[in-house]
């Protein structure tokens, strides 16, 4: 076994990006993701890469747009308020079918909010990332190891499908330090980019990277085509399950909340409740099938998240509201306790089987 190294979540994302071949990082400081930018600032010059501190989040995402258009693996990272500013660029990236990796280390909102961990940007990531019809692939790690692993996967998926892949973490995952096995990076898959702007070099006709289509018929066709691609991406919907085989109460949680929920599942089992955990690893595509399958055997669901209740809607939609779904959440930077989740599981267990 390879030697593990201790890394903060933010640093693991940065190291993974470098190992995935990213040599162009454009950022802007914001707590609690700053270690990521600092790591890049330290490493990139030594690798002949670019760390550029942009004048704004808007500029940073547009630099990613330019670098991605030029065919290289490019990345930016921020925290919640910064993502609002990046929304414009994320829409243009989608409209131009450019690959990119964007990291959101979420903090409490709205507005300037706070700097404590949050999951209140779930809607932003999966629903309202920017104007127009489009999606990001949204990956939700729950350990520092996964911050590393999923960042590498994000680059591969982004290039494969020419989409933006987002790594959606939170302030706690960004700051927590855990052992990481970086040898798991393995072979990195790369993709040919014949569409990239590299100069014609006298060998081909010009390439154009553009999202403007004034003919409605043409734009509709392109959107339909893009959604065929999204349907293909749907097969990546993925979860991690814990004690679900006989579970009567299914807890659904992602990211750091899933770790709290796992403790709570163990706690509830000690109290005699058959609880299990489904942890979505992809938030978009959302693992609808896995939820639906769980609804066949469970009598109720508990959704744990650090928001006023956002993912809970996807759970309800996935199971077509066929089972009661109880929300157990904290907001504004507060973190649910194991006890609160256990109480919610007990409450769910008292519901009659319909």
């Amino acid at each position, binding site marked *: 076994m390879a030697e*593990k190294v*201790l890394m903060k979540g933010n640093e693991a994302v940065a190291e993974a990006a470098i190992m995935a071949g990213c040599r162009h990082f454009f950022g802007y400081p914001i707590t609690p993701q700053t270690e990521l930018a600092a790591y890049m600032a330290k490493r990139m010059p030594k690798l002949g890469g670019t760390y550029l501190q942009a004048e704004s989040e808007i500029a940073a995402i547009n630099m990613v747009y330019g670098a991605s258009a030029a065919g290289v693996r490019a990345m930016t990272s921020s925290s919640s308020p910064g993502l609002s500013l990046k929304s414009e660029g994320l829409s243009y990236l989608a409209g131009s079918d450019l690959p990119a990796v964007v990291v959101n280390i979420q903090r409490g909102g709205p507005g300037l909010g706070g*700097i404590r961990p949050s999951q209140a940007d779930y809607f932003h990531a999966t629903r309202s990332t920017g104007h127009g019809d489009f999606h990001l692939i949204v990956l939700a790690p729950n350990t520092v190891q996964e911050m590393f692993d999923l960042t590498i996967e994000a680059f591969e998926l982004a290039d494969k499908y020419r989409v933006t892949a987002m790594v959606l973490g939170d302030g*706690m995952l960004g*700051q*927590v*330090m*855990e*052992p990481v096995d970086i040898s798991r990076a393995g072979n990195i898959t790369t993709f040919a980019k014949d569409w990239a702007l590299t100069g014609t070099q006298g060998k081909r006709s010009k390439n154009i990277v553009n999202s403007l289509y004034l003919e409605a018929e043409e734009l509709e066709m392109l959107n339909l085509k893009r959604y065929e691609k999204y349907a293909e991406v749907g097969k990546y919907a993925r979860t991690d399950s814990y004690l679900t085989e006989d579970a009567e109460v299914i807890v659904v949680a992602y990211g*750091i909340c899933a*770790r*709290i929920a*796992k*403790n709570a599942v*163990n706690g509830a089992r000690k109290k005699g409740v058959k609880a299990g955990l489904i942890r979505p690893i992809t938030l978009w595509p959302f693992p609808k099938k896995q939820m639906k399958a769980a609804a066949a055997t469970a009598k109720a669901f508990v959704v744990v998240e650090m928001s006023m209740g956002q993912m809970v809607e996807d759970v309800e939609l996935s199971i077509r509201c066929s089972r009661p779904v109880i929300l157990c959440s904290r907001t504004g930077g507060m*973190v649910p*306790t*194991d006890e609160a989740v256990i109480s919610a599981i007990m409450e769910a267990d008292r519901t009659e089987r319909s």
Partner: protein
Amino acid sequence: MSVTHELMIAGFGGQGVLFAGKILVYAGLLAGKEVSWLPSYGPEMRGGTANINVMISDTMIGSPIVTNPTMLVAMNQPSLEKFEKDVKKDGIILIDSTLIPAQVKRADVKTCYIPATKLAEDKGLKGLANMIMVGKVTKELGVFDLEVVKAATSKSVPERKQDLLASNLRAIEIGFNYMEG
């Protein structure tokens, strides 16, 4: 039966509680344990409160948040006041008695009073009270040997500060060998 040690190390920013935590998780890693290190601090860079949640376990760590520590290391009075009640029954509270005049009120925990700040000053190790506490934590935990902590420290002290390594190691030894009374 798996054992999970949940440590809360708390003090003022600048006392080195984050670094102390780092040494302990590194030692845990070298000893083949699962570990996590989660900081919590105010917006101030210096002088504010700082605490660190450290987990050292035989099994995969669930939530890295320590709400009921098995061991509290209090480096100042506010930290003791804030976290004393949260410590698990039969847990341990380590106190820097130079900075904390108060006594622990609870009777259901083990307490250790170490004048870490004074010891550090007396031995010419000013500013290394945190490492004296690391030594004492090592002794009380019994999860890894002194040598493992020393190895972790050697790897954690940056290249440009290697001249400080010897004093850090000495501070750890002082804490490890300290006997009350």
